[in-house]
């Protein structure tokens, strides 16, 4: 693939632009509050782990991370497992209302979360799921399921139809064909779809905050609470922020090879 002149410089500048604000957050999380407020230092002169220690020892803090991960994983599993058969159907067959259904699904991906915040609150309170990870996981399906269907449909379409036909001639039943042949063939597509589901569920806050109060509160909401308590505890805020970046960074590291090849296989 052919690149443009000065590409190293452009890339370097852009990466610095991306990393500088993150560096500043990491930098602050290792400073004492006195150092943050009183002086401007480019790196922590008196590095401290006090903020991290506080987060890992205080249950009201670390439980937030567990809650967040719980609903994100639930949501990813639900989204992928319902989206897989649908993606196959959209890719291989024509059926009554297929185009309208596909558009309707996509339009839900585009619906603003703010519109649904209040009705979701009513709905999940009424069926007794309020303040559980299930409420948030199901609520996030509204934008993750359509996205997963969309991505997976592209990958299924990339599998030649002859493979289906050969498998059926060989006597595979549909479920066995699906699990034994199709799923391994589009493994990288499932990886990409799971990556996107994880990403959009992990970063969403408005619905997650509205649908939880105590026992399932996500970390991102706990952060906002502590900011207002007794002035600004900047160091603690920064440390909590850094810890929310880590799961995302880990997920990216695992799918880094799929980001390059996986994206291209599907929807291009």
């Amino acid at each position, binding site marked *: *693939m052919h690149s443009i002149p000065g590409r190293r410089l452009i890339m370097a500048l852009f990466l610095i632009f991306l*990393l*500088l604000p993150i560096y500043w957050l990491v930098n602050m999380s290792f400073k004492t509050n006195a150092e943050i407020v009183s002086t401007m230092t480019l790196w922590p002169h008196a590095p401290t782990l006090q903020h991290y220690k506080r987060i890992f020892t205080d249950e009201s803090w670390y439980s937030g991370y567990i809650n967040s991960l719980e609903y994100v994983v639930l949501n990813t599993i639900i989204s992928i497992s319902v989206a897989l058969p649908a993606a196959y159907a959209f890719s291989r067959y*024509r*059926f009554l209302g297929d185009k309208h259904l596909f558009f309707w699904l996509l339009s839900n991906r585009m619906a603003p979360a703010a519109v649904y915040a209040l*009705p979701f609150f009513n709905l999940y309170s009424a069926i007794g799921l309020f303040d559980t990870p299930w409420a948030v996981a199901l609520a996030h399906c509204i934008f993750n399921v359509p996205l997963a269907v969309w991505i997976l449909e592209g990958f299924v379409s990339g599998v030649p139809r002859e493979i289906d036909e050969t498998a059926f001639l060989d006597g595979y039943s549909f479920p066995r064909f699906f699990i034994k042949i199709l799923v391994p063939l589009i493994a990288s597509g499932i990886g990409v779809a799971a990556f996107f589901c994880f990403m959009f569920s992990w970063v969403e806050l*408005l619905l997650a905050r509205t649908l939880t109060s105590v026992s399932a509160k996500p970390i991102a909401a706990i*952060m906002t609470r502590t900011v207002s308590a007794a002035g600004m505890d900047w160091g603690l805020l920064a440390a909590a922020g850094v810890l929310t970046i880590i799961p995302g960074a880990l997920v*990216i590291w695992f799918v880094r090879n799929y*980001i390059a090849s996986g994206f291209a296989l599907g929807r291009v």
Partner: protein
Amino acid sequence: MDKTVNQKAWFLVLPVFLVVAFSAVLPLMTVVNYSMQDTFGNNQFFWNGVGWFKELLDPSTDLGGRFLASLGRNLFFSLVILAIEVPLGIVVALSMPRQGWTVAACLVILALPLLIPWNVVGTIWQIFGRPDIGLLGYVLNHIGIDYNYVSNEIDAWVTVIVMDVWHWTSLVALLCYAGLKSIPEAYYQAAQIDGASRWAVFKAIQLPKMNRVLLIAVLLRFMDSFMIYTEPFVVTGGGPGNSTTFVSIELVKIALGQFDLGKAAALSLVYNLIILIVCWIFYTVMTNASAERKPQEGAA
């Protein structure tokens, strides 16, 4: 490859249909119900017909004025970030290293902002831009630029836009990169034999191949910027004044702040309708584009 007609495929789609209908149709019914009513608290509701909708579209009323102003701000915001992020994303994608470990490193760093929770993105920029403890605000003020996103409207706008560029340009870049990767090396060799210039290669080979991913990128970026809530809310809280109050922020203010359920529901429906229309236009353009592409590919 023609698809076969098979009505049994509905069984495969059914789980998706049920999950999404549960999350989308039921709540939407509640919204429609509320939008026709007025409430004075105590769960007492009064029929209000299309009153809220009339007010919403009339700029002389309080509700209508606020809605149309925030809608205007939101459209302006979306256009500005699209105008910056799409060209920048293409340039970044073209600047990707060709091979070696730097490819993986660049991809990981590019994807990093995408996986930071949105309110943490807000927090990062809130801290980064503060004149007293943030690097950006501190440096700007010390080289003589009077920068303060809390009190100055233009500074607040610049901060929100730069934050969005920081947050989302990577998505455009990653999609474009995937598009570029799918171009066979033979195309470039042919271009080289023809003595095509760098610009000609971009215009005749790379841009057409990126067409489809670019449409997806524009679609996703337009929609997401049109419903942006968390990041500007954390950084500016919609201020100073109302200068960075976008539609979602206005909506949450009315719904959860003032608990004006009727007004909020009417606003939701109109908001949703606008997004639906834009979405439909994009979808039609996209399906037409791929329908046009198929015969070409068959010929080649």
